[in-house]
């Protein structure tokens, strides 16, 4: 006779943890299943934690969560092969009592979150892969199959927080497989350096942190994104590119990462570091239009598995937590009123999300994934190059008068994209972000 729980949560990342925590706090009998040796051992992120989403779930998280540095400076760079044109924003106001953004190391953070989940009363079982969903004769999900000997576990409702690959949901026919144009592949390394070295290289003191987000030409002919985040005693360094573009451009992810690390503007920041880990991960980039059904009879989808990522603003783990919390609250409310976990009743989950930034932002940017896919060569390749050439021209003092320089810059933009191209790009960009 298999065991029966109020709810089963598949996965112990931010979305699953938020769901399990919320339900356990509400007094439900919760089982959470994680395939890794410990929560976080399969999880990869940059990583930046946006405090707001977590604060709504665990208001006192700052007391003992493993936070690395609070971010006081954001550097946005457009790269070409030898230079970057950038915008930095740094403010003393970010040295506030309850900072808004922190760098974190996910394996450590997820372990901390999981301890809070267990303290709240949920049963967390690791090293167990969920292989399929169990259904009754009407098709309602009533539990999960696992790869453990004593296999099956029953529950009134199953929350799928299984991450970007979402294998269980896909095998059960709840969602399609991602397409190569709907996912970015990120390759990342952890570079360790003494704390003082990081602070002097990035102009920081105490627990202040800085992050660099770069876009453009990372290697000859290869466009994409790159990042450097400061942790206490390490730098998280990575690159990302749509899978469909990797498939076309013939680059290797590790070759692209190496090119980024060797960029003349990045290399000095990493000098002398010891690399202690290499990881890779997919980010769902399809947005609103790629979103699968989020609920049905006896099941809900949360986090990356539901495409909850705002790739324009680099938000994902916050959406994971907010969706996990909303799922947990929906389930707790249904349980309290003794109603069945039908598709009709679980629809309250999506209604709740519609009122949050999650759905509002994903709707706002619903055309962005298509836009990026169609125009990445222009926006990541052509423009950074044009801006870099313009800046180079403008700042070099070489006896050429300023009006001639202005003309040269304007004509380089015209040559690069033509006037119709420039106007078209501006129009398409605005339309994709409205």
């Amino acid at each position, binding site marked *: 006779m298999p065991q029966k729980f109020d709810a089963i949560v598949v996965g112990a990342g931010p979305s699953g943890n938020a769901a399990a925590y919320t339900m356990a706090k509400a007094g439900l009998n919760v089982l959470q299943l994680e*395939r*890794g*040796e410990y929560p*976080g*051992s*399969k*999880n*990869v*992120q940059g*990583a930046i934690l946006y405090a707001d989403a977590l604060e709504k779930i665990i208001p006192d998280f700052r007391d003992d969560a493993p936070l690395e540095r609070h971010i006081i400076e954001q550097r946005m760079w457009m790269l070409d*092969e030898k230079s970057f044109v950038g915008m930095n924003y740094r403010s003393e106001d970010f040295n506030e009592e309850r900072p808004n953004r922190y760098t974190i*190391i*996910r*394996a*450590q953070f*997820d372990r901390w979150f999981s301890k809070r989940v267990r303290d709240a009363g949920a049963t967390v079982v*690791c*090293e*167990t*892969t969920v292989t399929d969903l169990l259904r009754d004769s009407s098709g309602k999900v009533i539990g999960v199959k*696992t*790869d*453990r000997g004593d296999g099956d576990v029953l529950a009134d409702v199953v929350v799928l927080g299984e991450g*970007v*690959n979402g*294998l269980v949901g896909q095998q059960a026919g709840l969602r399609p*497989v*991602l*397409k*190569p144009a709907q*996912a970015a*592949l990120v*390759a990342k*390394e*952890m570079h360790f350096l003494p704390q003082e070295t990081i602070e002097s290289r990035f102009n920081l003191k105490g627990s202040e942190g800085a992050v660099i987000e770069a876009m453009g030409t990372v*290697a*000859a002919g*290869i466009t994409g994104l790159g990042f450097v985040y400061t942790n206490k005693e*390490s730098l998280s360094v990575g690159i990302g590119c749509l*899978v469909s573009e*990797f*498939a076309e451009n*013939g*680059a*290797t*992810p*590790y*070759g*692209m990462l*190496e*090119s980024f690390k*060797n960029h003349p503007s990045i290399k000095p920041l990493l000098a002398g570091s010891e*690399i*202690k*880990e*290499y*990881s*890779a*991960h*997919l980010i769902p980039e399809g947005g609103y239009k790629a979103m699968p059904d989020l609920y049905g009879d006896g099941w809900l989808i949360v986090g990356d598995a539901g495409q909850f990522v705002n790739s324009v603003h680099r938000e994902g783990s916050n959406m994971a937590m907010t969706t996990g919390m909303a799922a947990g609250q929906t389930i707790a409310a249904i349980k309290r009123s003794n109603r069945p976990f039908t598709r009709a009743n679980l629809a309250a989950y999506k209604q709740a999300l519609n009122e949050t930034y999650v759905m509002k932002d994903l709707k706002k940017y619903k055309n962005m994934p298509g836009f990026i896919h169609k125009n990445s060569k222009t926006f990541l390749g052509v423009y950074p190059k044009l801006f870099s050439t313009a800046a180079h021209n403008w700042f070099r003092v070489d006896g050429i008068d300023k009006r001639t320089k202005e003309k040269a810059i304007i004509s380089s933009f015209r040559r690069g994209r033509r006037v119709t191209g420039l106007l078209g790009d501006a129009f398409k960009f605005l339309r994709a972000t409205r």
Partner: protein
Amino acid sequence: MSTESANVPPVKVEGKLFTNRYLVDGKHPHIKVKPHEKPTKALLSLTHICPAGCYSQNDKGQVEAMVDGCLECGTCRIVCAATGDIEWNYPRGGFGVLFKFG
């Protein structure tokens, strides 16, 4: 397993994987390439797109997988979803890559 970028020396991915912790499930590789005579374009692209360099061509030109260094990202799975060239599963619970930092 090298890259052809002009300004960077060839990269060995093995050196990167060496920093990682794995619990290899020797008897049950979680990814299998289906038998084929000649690889599809998608399958062939895995030889450069896999961030762990798990895929290579044998002397007959067929693509083979050695998944001990797999980072479990799922890239090969979505690249070959349409062609059905590979069978992809998560490793058994507890096995596979164990990220210390993630």
